[in-house]
């Protein structure tokens, strides 16, 4: 399932296809599954007892590109959508459906030393779809079209590499939770446009009330030699990561302690997210309505926001186990 989720394109603002895919997986297991005007997918599942409501939230959008101009020679100028570093863009493949393109610059032989050391500027870059002119390019694309990274899902040993692990991994965990029956009520919100300002979540939250919320994410993992321990943020294979705070929110300490206790009691591999940089939908979820006790659980993803993000399968499994155990116990909290 994670393969299909990551290989389906859904750049922020263009999530309809991924919303429909998620809805098709989720609907058989919910009491209600709605796609709203923002392409958020909200799934509701009544609990066997139903005194408590847990909201799980993950975003469906991924970083990518939007075309802002077509040159006379048929090249596509673009802006990045979400946080993409131009440092990684040379020699990359992108796609819009079946239309393939490449991002690169003039060959290295034609550069001088300064050009070779310089990180390219976004407005120097372009997507080449092989069009011979502007009118030829207009057969395939128009200004405002979205392109995603063209990257396939690969498994090797414990490693999974794919684009958009941030945050299709969160979506995958939520789809697993929908398959089972719980004592508590469950709301799964698959929200859009997180990467560009939590716009989807803000919309979705207007109609959601919950006692607890867990944001499920993919997060930074800088687990390489030469990176000081305190800058690794999370360790790959170190288990599901529990956040204490980030740029936008402070995790509810009571909920954090419950999650850690459940992990310890059940032998689930977990770690702290050792950085307060970055942010996710917790910043809007926690302050919605009268406030919801919110925490974030994240799967460590190396090379996040790139076409080659990498996670450890075991961290993914730990995430599924911890969220499951939490839902099992939520009614009694």
């Amino acid at each position, binding site marked *: 399932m994670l393969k299909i989720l990551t290989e389906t394109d859904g750049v922020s603002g263009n999530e309809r296809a991924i919303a429909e895919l998620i809805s098709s997986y989720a609907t058989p297991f919910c009491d209600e599954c709605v796609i709203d005007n923002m392409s958020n997918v909200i799934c509701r599942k009544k609990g066997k007892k139903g005194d408590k409501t847990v909201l799980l939230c993950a975003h469906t959008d991924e970083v990518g590109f939007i075309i802002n101009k077509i040159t006379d020679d048929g*090249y596509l100028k673009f802006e990045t959508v979400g946080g993409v570093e131009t440092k990684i863009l040379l020699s990359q493949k992108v796609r819009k459906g079946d239309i393939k*393109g490449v991002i690169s610059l003039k*060959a290295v032989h034609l550069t001088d030393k300064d050009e070779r050391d310089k990180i390219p500027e976004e407005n120097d870059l372009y997507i080449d779809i092989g069009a011979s002119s502007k009118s030829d390019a207009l057969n395939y694309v128009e200004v405002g079209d979205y392109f995603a990274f063209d990257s396939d899902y690969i498994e090797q040993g414990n490693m999974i590499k794919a684009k958009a692990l941030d945050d299709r991994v969160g979506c995958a965990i939520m789809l697993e939770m929908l398959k089972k029956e719980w004592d508590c009520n469950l709301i799964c919100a698959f929200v859009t446009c997180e990467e560009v300002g939590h716009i989807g979540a803000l919309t979705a939250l207007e109609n959601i009330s919950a006692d607890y919320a867990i944001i499920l994410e993919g997060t930074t993992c800088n687990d390489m030699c030469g990176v000081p321990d305190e800058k690794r943020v999370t360790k790959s294979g170190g288990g599901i990561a529990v956040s204490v705070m980030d740029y936008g929110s402070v995790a509810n300490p009571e909920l954090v302690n419950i999650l850690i206790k459940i992990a310890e009691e059940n032998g689930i591999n977990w770690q702290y997210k050792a*950085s307060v940089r970055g942010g996710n939908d917790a910043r809007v979820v926690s302050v919605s309505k009268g406030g919801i006790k919110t925490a974030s659980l994240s799967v460590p993803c190396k090379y996040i926001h790139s076409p080659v993000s990498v996670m450890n399968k075991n961290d993914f499994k730990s995430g599924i186990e911890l969220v499951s155990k939490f839902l099992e116990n939520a009614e009694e909290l």
Partner: protein
Amino acid sequence: MDTEMILKKLADECSVSGFESGMCETVKELMLPFCDNVKINRFNSVICHKKSENGNGKKVMIEAHLDQIGMIVTGIDEMGFVKFMSVGGIDKRILPCSEVYILGSEKVYGVIGSKPPHITENADKNKMPDIGELLIDTGYTKAELNEKISVGDSIVLKSDLVKLAGETVCSSALDNRAGITAVISAASQIEKTEYDMYYVFASEEELGLHGAYPVTREINPDYAVIVDVTHGMTDDTKSETGVFRLGCGAVVCKGPALNPDLSKRLTDIAKNNGIKFETEVVSGHSGTNAWAVQKSRGTCKTALVSVPLKYMHTAVETADISDINEVSRLVADAIKEGLENA
């Protein structure tokens, strides 16, 4: 013979300079129907001989280099990340977030990692990393990797052949799969000829034209036509000279290191036969095997014909199939109609 089909077969093979043996076998298999015998010399160059019809023809060498740029394993660190250096002039700017295959006793997939935006310090933010700072992540531990790869194994950029708009294709190593394809296709168009033909695919061009020197001395040709790639015009080079729009046809090179009569003969044939072409000027070293051939045998009349290629030495080298076809037609017609002006 279908150009795309040849390209796909070549794309399945890896031939980093010095590690060409697999590609030698693939090229041999593709060339056998069009020549009398094929041998692979001590330096991993492939030499395909087609005897002249009348037995005393002049020797003609049509050559395209067999190797591609790549990398080589230099070590495995404690966490299982693979250290490497480049083989041939790889563009270091493309390496962060590239996908590779390490060709050990197993083919191991890997990713060249880059620090994420959330973490990058402001000073690092302004610099492209050097090759020595990059590491390949395979997901394996050091112990697991030691079973599969070794220091000295070659590494290639992962890139499947992809079709873009029109007849444009994209892949790593179109330098020089495009040239090899043009030569194989030309050979398929030549049934009988007065010339003693040598279709040669030389090794280690990317390291300094190494394979071309010994093979030229071995064959001792009277004429040589080298088929390689040249720079395609991109959005950021549109006002420069020496770059060629994809779809412009075969690019014939002129300059002091090439024989002017043979270069003119090629452009005359192109004009007469309605083959699209452009002329490239190189005032010194062409950076191709033409230089090595001319240096090894001053008596050999040497020409250079190229396929325009965008983004050379990256994983997304881009060419137009129609240009490959024009090059192969030009070479084949030149052999059929003779390499001397009437």
